[in-house]
């Protein structure tokens, strides 16, 4: 009996909270910031991952710089050709792949690639093939 009463009370609290959220003060109630904390993040990002491979040898390529047009972020592929970065969510991305270490790890032609994003996707994996110079 006590448990049913507790459940009822909790449901009542949830209803009160929902009413507040819907009809009044919504931003002031839910988007709070601790005294010494950061602002809230709304998580409007997406995880972009991929692997860079040589079209000729099919080996993974290290040290290819990956940039996204109009964004300040950049990264580079690791020793297994993998890369990853969280980026702001957009409808499409223009990737620039650049061989930045000269002849170390082989020489490859640069590639610019436009990728469209499905709105339901939370991550994107790219297999990137670069031509040997």
């Amino acid at each position, binding site marked *: 009996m006590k448990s049913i009463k507790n459940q009822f*009370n*909790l449901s*009542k*609290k*949830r209803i*009160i*909270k929902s009413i*507040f959220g819907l009809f*009044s*003060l919504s*931003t*002031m*109630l839910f*988007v*709070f*910031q*601790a*005294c*010494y*904390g*950061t*602002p*809230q*993040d*709304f*998580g*409007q*990002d997406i*995880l972009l991952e991929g692997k860079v491979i040589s079209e000729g040898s099919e080996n993974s390529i290290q040290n290819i710089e990956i940039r996204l047009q109009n964004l*300040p*972020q*950049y*990264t580079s592929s690791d020793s297994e050709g993998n890369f*990853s*970065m*969280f*980026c*702001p969510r957009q409808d499409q991305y223009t990737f620039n792949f650049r061989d930045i270490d000269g002849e170390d790890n082989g020489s490859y032609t640069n590639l610019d690639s436009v990728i469209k994003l499905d709105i339901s996707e939370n991550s994107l994996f790219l297999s990137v093939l670069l031509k040997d110079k």
Partner: protein
Amino acid sequence: MATKNSFSLKQKALLKSFRHYRKAETALHPLNYLFWECTLRCNLSCLHCGSDCHVDSEVPDMPSDIFLREMEHIAQKYDPTKIMVVITGGEPLLRKDLPEIGFKLRKMGFKWGIVTNGYSLTPNIYNSLVNCGLGAITLSLDGQESDHNWIRNRQDAYSKAMNALNLILSTPRVQSDVVSCVNKRTINKLPEIFNDLKKRGLKTWRLFTITPIGRALDYPELDLSADEFTSLMNFIQAKRAENSELTVNFSCESYLGTYEGKVRDGLFFCRAGINIGSILADGSVSACPNIDRELIQGSIYKNRFTEIWENNFIPFRDRSWTKIGLCKTCKEYKYCEGSGLHWWRMSDKQLLKCHYSEIR
């Protein structure tokens, strides 16, 4: 300008209805905001520091695998997409594994951010943090060059903080603000600081006062007088009324009477232990890291964080114990409930400051 006893009808109605929300939220106490004190090491030695941090801390940094294991468990029990993890210190950028930890947190679904003095924030480090899902950052900046360097106890602190600010403002994806600790040296320079920050493109500036704990105890001259505090409220209220591109907020550190709803986005609600928890450097579990350590509720080395969150935290969720001293006869207690809990010294149950009572 507001006076101490001139509530508008709208304010009274808001405060009264907000009490119901606060009661409901306290009963449900969903964890929405989790601090991780990732280190007690720091590269500065600020005069007003409320924590126990040092250049070389005696408390070792918590190993990342222990923290991440606990976070995995939290992600299983609660919805991680509704929890903001705020990494603090000491100075969090002193941990070299911060990007890797942040990446794992974001992959689990948590959103994460850091509070930093910006001293070590280079373009490469910032880029790697953003790549790893950094979603929010707060930069501490305590005034113009001479005042900032004085309080930060280092001659190049301001120039490094400015470099950090420029970097931060280059990434609109990352939610950011600057926090400034207002003191006797800066209270009359706020308009100049405002203009400078606005010119640089900052969107949110948060002001707070110094809590007389930690090293700040040695510098009572940092503490604002009642008149100075009231003039701070008036400054913020006036700036907010301008609807400038730079929004000024007073931090949610205390109840402000008739200034409620006028100097910050929300009404006062100390959510410590209600929505806010923390994992401290030594594994202790508390609410905000700057709350008296006598209020520690457990340790992740003995129990799961979620067990502690669900079963302990009574003094945070039933604050009737704060109705003593100045609070005992205060007519505003129902809206305030003992101010921000970081103002309480637990050894003698003393409220170190009541902003409401200081407002002229």
